[in-house]
């Protein structure tokens, strides 16, 4: 599992595959205030990105890989601002 869930945050690690999207979505629905930690995330499947975009959550930590961060930040940060 590339995602560690706790009550207040989901920590995404290494590569998040599409198999984990269902769980992620469930967790996001169950934890409307849950935050996201992408610090150790190297890649996430497009489906996971879409789910996160839709969830509009605070991102605690951005991926260390700046290029990856560059791809996803505009999409996820926008929600954070609101």
């Amino acid at each position, binding site marked *: 599992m590339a995602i560690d869930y706790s009550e207040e945050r989901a920590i995404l690690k290494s590569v998040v595959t599409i198999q984990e999207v269902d769980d992620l*979505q469930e967790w996001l629905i169950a934890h409307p205030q849950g935050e996201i930690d992408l610090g150790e995330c190297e890649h996430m499947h*497009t489906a996971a990105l*879409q*789910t996160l*975009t*839709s969830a509009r959550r605070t991102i605690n930590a951005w991926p260390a890989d700046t290029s990856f961060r560059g791809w996803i930040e505009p999409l996820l940060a*926008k929600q954070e601002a609101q």
Partner: protein
Amino acid sequence: MSPLLQQFVSETRDLLQSISEQLLEVEKADDKQTTLNELFRIVHTLKGNTGLFEFPDLTRVLHAGEDVMSEARERPEIWDQALTDLLFESMDYVSSFCDSLEENNGEPVSDSKAATQLSKDLRAYLDGNNSEANAEATDSGAANEPQKAKKAATKTKKATAQKKSAGGSSKRRPPRAKGLPPEHSLLKVLPVDTLIEAWTASSPDEPIWLVKYSPLAECFFQGDDPLHTARSTPGVLWGKVENACATQDINDLDPYQCVSTFTLLSNASEDELHEHYRYVTEQTDIEELSSHHLLLLSGDDQNDALPEDTVDALCDAVEAIQFDTASDIATTALELLNKDLQAAAALRWVIAITSDTDAQENEAKEALIVVCQRLRHNQHLSGYRFSEPEPDEKIEERKEEHEPEESRLDTYTESTTDLSGADTEDLLDALVEDDREAFEHIVRTQGRILELDPTVDWAKGRLRATCNVLIKTTASLGLSSLIPALEEAVNAALSGNTEPLADWINEVIPGACSAVGAGSESNSAEDESRNPDNLDTQQGPEDTDMEATDISEESGEENPDESSDESTADEAAEGSSEDTESQDTETTEQPEIQAPAATAPVETPAEKQTADKASSFKPEPAVAPSKSVKVDQEKIDRLMNLIGEMTVAKNALPFLAKRAEEQHGLRDLAREIKEQFAVVNRIAEEMQDSIMQIRMMPFSFISMRFPRLVRDISRRLNKDVQLVIEGEDTEADKNIIESLAEPLIHIVRNSLDHGIEAPDVRKQKGKPATGSLTIRASQEADRVMIEIQDDGKGIDPEVIRNKAFEKGLIDEATRQRLTDKEAVNLVLMPGFSTADEVSDLSGRGVGMDAVRSAVDKVNGTMALESQVDKGTRIRISLPMSIAVTRVMIIESDNQLMGIPMDQVLETVRVPRSDIHTVKHVKTTVLRDRIVPLKSLNELLALPAEQIINEEEEHAVLVARVGNDVIGLVVDDFRGSVDIIQKPMTGVLSGMQAYSGAALIGDGSVLMVLNLKEVL
């Protein structure tokens, strides 16, 4: 070759056939739409099939073809003969590709160059027509004029870029604009840091690529991760993901539908990119940009951010190639400046470019000039005349290459500097045609917006948007002399009096605005209605609406998104002219629908096309399971052989019955065997019939290639020919049908080439200009008749006679004796047609003997009738099946032999006294005709005399061999029988006297005589 590949090849062949039918149909059809739809569908399927394998060349050609068809579907008027030719050519390419696939066992030898050329040609067609279409679109003057104009500009730019690369040298050179390259709406939103980074990473000589990738919604199910694909793009400089998920509730989200789109910049080679996206070529749009496209000033707009003298000093330094000075000026000025301003971006560019040690001096200067021009433009300063950075031939060349851009730049600098005194009309005249048109449309539209109801809630925002559009448009075209008046008018308008603005518009474009200054007082209920969701939806189009966004900075009080919202609403309102209210509600309620609609204007044409395609093809009509099964011919042949053996085996039963009765005296048993035989016989015969049916093919199998053939040849010869094909469902054995293909093509070609005259000649002769060629297939008893008839100039028998005589094929007597009909048939004689004669003659006869021998091979006959100036008719008669042959069994010297029934005219008993010897040849007179007689024993070198019956009569079988009738003297006749003839194999195959052998019921072998060889 794998079974999958085999199936692919066979399906491709079928699809190609349908394509070529449809192509011809399109040319004829009145209602092109249906046919084009069908055509598109087939090409789409075909292209989809190629996706299973790795044949990039094939896919490329088909993809181009598909795009063209898709375009044609929307605008059938682009269809013309040249396009049909091109598409035919492409289909030929696909067909030859399949051939090479089969020949090389799945490893095609593909002609990459041809593929590239074809796809370029096809695409050139697309682009050429596209720009026209855009001109039209701009004319139609709809609501979102600015976007459209911009779109048209982008498209044209793209088209020219592609044309250049198509026609240009093999070393691709990006279209380097000497002036300001158009600002790319997608790039414009990028932070300047990203742009600088990308610029530094790319070499000025290499193009960079803007890739737009819109994966299919269901792509996750195909194991795709588009984000990964995008991220792993070779040479990626920058990229972003867009999706509308933010507006969607997480509870309702279907995460397995891909709704993301990707945009990225790459400096990899075009090939690398195509390779990377080869599986999703349909969903990607790769646009070529030069590094100058990156030189954009992103950030906030502010007119007077930099003092004019600073800018001038900067430009001077650039002009003098004092990069250090320029860099210093920039660094100093930057310290004083808000980093978010566009001016600051320009300064950062200057610093970045001057400190880029890799860049050549002239390249750097070119880039700096672009930056400076943009900066001046942005600061509303007049243009600065820079000298050419690189005064050698290369530049000259380039200048010529890029004439349009060049002239645009000239206009730009001149109009900004010198035209202050000229009146509006002259100013506009000085603009490039495209710019002028776009400008007029934009102003006109704004005029119309001004005319709208000023009492609505959003009137103020709308007015702002209008003002902003006008100011920006005017400034961007360098019409600086118009600006002061405009600014005044705008100020007045914003403070409530739109009259001066309307006047200004009318001054520029007379009659564009009829609005009377009715001050919009309605700024009260301005902001309440916007909820965050709504805003969010509208974020998509923010790059389209740069103008609209900018105004908020000027007024400095509104959220940029908000005014963007307003202007979009305005433009929508302009489209529907009213009912903006409901549109607003819609927006709020159904954000996910509104979002794509709002982004639509930014989409490039290709993208849009892809989207259209995707949407129109998602509900692929369910294909009914095909009722036919493809079976290898060998399997049917095996069935055929088995039923042959079965027939023989069953035919042994009567012999058995006979033996039971005669030798063992078991009459009952014999009867039972006979009864049993009747049952087996019936089943066997039915089975044989059914198997024959399997082998039967309709005539259409070969006739369907004629329309294309006739079209191609007649086009090449400039003749008008109407082809009529009748009896396409006439069936015959596969072998027969296939053996007919070549000869028929030959005949048709002859008819077109030498038979049917050119239209003007035909008119002179009083015939309709359009010649007609009829191919008719019909069934007569157990034979298939094929008739090819034209109404051309026919064959002159006199010419044929003389030629045949000269050639020594006939003697003087024959020449005199031959009737016209017989003379015409001389063209079928072997040796008659050789090249030199053909050119003298009407030409008929090219390879006619080849045709004839092909027909002979399947036991067919052919005859030719012709009348000068009336036309020619060729009749071919063929057996329906060659699998089962009916033979006459004869006996000679105690041996049984078969003679094919279709050669047998009659069997007679000739009294010995009626046989006379004429010139050492035995003859007899039958039905007033002299028939030469030949003894079979003699012919076969059997040492026995032919046996005579008690009445001293010879058994004579009268047979037709070619055009001759001869009497074959045999010992006795034994009736006729159906046999399955097997060709002679092994050492026997050299024996020409027999055409084959067959087993008969008693298990003995029957040799079938080949009379032609025997005589």
